[in-house]
């Protein structure tokens, strides 16, 4: 693009752009800011109107109460741990399958793709009970395994990978590798995968969120409170008669940290422009 930024018209446009982006930024993060601010207020002050940004008096009692009265770190560990495992597995599985669908023509491709794709339309509440019975009756109820079961082969991820591969991996590259004599898997691993970094990053973030925020599945699976995931734990505080808003806010703020971290760590992947790797001409 060769538009210059020097002209007054362009400068005004650029200024408007910034203004809009900043306005959006405020809208998007205001609730989190409110939650953080509220988590440092005592119970009675949380809902004051107009809300004060900096609490006065500022107190960490909500955090202390939360960590002291609930096995928060156990919940935290379970949520983060299972989400990480599910993410690693699903990214791998989806990239493989997405590549298979995107770059090969084979017998039954259309049918298999449709079957995979159709599962996106299945509401989770419907398969929840049969899946639960299946997992329990096969004796695989240990949380570290059973919690990730619904999330390790997500059709969404394969669909995403397929589309990204179609858009960003030109056939020529694969041709070139084949002519060079590389194995299919080698092509995938060494040539295609590095080019997919942005989409892998997006998929990893999505996958992490799915497992991390899931509520219904852990609810029916886990009975031991020390093995709860964060959404379950927070919901106990929220769903009880006296709605411990103070503890919930503190817990929610802490619970947001891993996903923000994951995103920050992976955003470089998301950002990476592919202009360097794209085939020219």
């Amino acid at each position, binding site marked *: 693009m060769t538009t210059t930024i020097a002209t007054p018209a362009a400068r005004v446009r650029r200024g408007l752009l910034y203004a809009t982006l900043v306005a959006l930024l405020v809208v998007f993060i205001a609730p989190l800011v409110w939650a953080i601010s509220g988590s440092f207020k005592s119970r009675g002050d949380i809902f004051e109107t107009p809300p004060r940004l900096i609490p006065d008096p500022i107190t960490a009692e909500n955090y202390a109460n939360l960590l002291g009265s609930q096995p928060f770190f156990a919940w935290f560990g379970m949520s983060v741990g299972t989400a990480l495992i599910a993410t690693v597995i699903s990214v791998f599985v989806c990239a493989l399958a997405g590549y298979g669908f995107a770059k090969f023509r084979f017998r039954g491709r259309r049918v298999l793709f449709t079957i995979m794709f159709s599962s*996106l*339309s299945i509401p989770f509440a419907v398969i929840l009970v049969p899946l639960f019975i299946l997992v329990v009756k096969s004796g695989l109820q240990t949380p570290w395994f059973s919690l990730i079961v619904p999330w390790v082969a997500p059709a969404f991820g394969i669909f995403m990978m397929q589309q990204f591969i179609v858009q960003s991996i030109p056939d020529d590259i694969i041709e070139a590798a084949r002519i060079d004599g590389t194995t299919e898997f080698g092509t995938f691993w060494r040539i295609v995968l590095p080019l997919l970094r942005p989409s892998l990053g997006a998929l990893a973030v999505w996958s992490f969120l799915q497992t991390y925020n899931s509520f219904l599945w852990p609810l029916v699976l886990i009975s031991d409170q020390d093995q709860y995931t964060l959404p379950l734990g927070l919901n106990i505080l929220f769903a009880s008669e006296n709605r411990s808003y103070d503890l919930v806010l503190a817990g929610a703020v802490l619970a947001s940290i891993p996903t923000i971290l994951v995103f920050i760590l992976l955003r470089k992947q998301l950002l990476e422009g592919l202009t360097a790797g794209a085939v*020219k001409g």
Partner: protein
Amino acid sequence: MMSTHTELTVVPTELRRKHGGRSLRGGAAPYLFIAPFYVLYALFMIVPVLAAIALSTTEWVGIGMPAFVGLDNYLDLARDTSFGGALANSGIYTLIAVIIVVPLSLLVAQGLAAKGLKFRDGFRVAYFVPMVISPIVIALIFSLILDRDYGLLNASLHALFGIPNVDWLGDPTIAKFAIGFVLLWRTVGYLTIFFLAALQNVPKELYEAAALDGAGRWRTFLTVTLPSIRPVAAFVVVTSFISAAQLFDEPYLLTKGGPGESTLSVAMFIFRAAFERQQFGYAAAAGVVLFAIVFLVSQALNRILGIGRDQ
């Protein structure tokens, strides 16, 4: 180095294209690639789905044996005004998602992709935040902001424009759009990330060529940007449709489907039938109906948007 190869491979490539695409036709490779997924999928999706379909022909409270009732559940669904209302509501949510949320995300991504933009990173992290916050907190915050008497939104509107209090969550019609707004708030930033990734994949040369041709911003957008990101854009449209059709968190947490049932979504209807009314067979039937509708529409969208075809 790549360019020499391109020259060499131009002709064979075209020949191969004529014959229906490249690569190994009967080889084992593609099947091996999709095998890990399919093994897991068969176990954890197909089996429960079959069971759920069977369940939809029964009546079952959860204990004991399900009682076969044939198509009674489906007939009851047809007469259930609550289900009809839920379908209409979910329809509204999907329209909001596809017609407002997706284009808006693309617009924002365009803005973020602008050359030489400062703080791009900061914006992206910030825009992603709504996805990160636990749904419980989102519900709490928005129920506060949208409260008729004590909410921030009404207070601001009143102060700025003198508008009397709007019952965002208590009026049957307005509540639907309040839910739509929360949906928008939650997903725009996230979809922007997708679009941004796609936009940054568009080869600069194409833009340079268009500029040389003298194309204005809008024409460039239409002829260069949109076609180049079609696969990802198509993906975003279809998945946004599908997830809006299955919207659950927002209506469940914000209004519990209320006031009355005016914000009830189909996914909430299913959840309610299964887990609040112990009518697993009925819930499964509703699930099958939802599945059928979503599947058919998304297949149509696929065809229209050219998903599964090469660029």
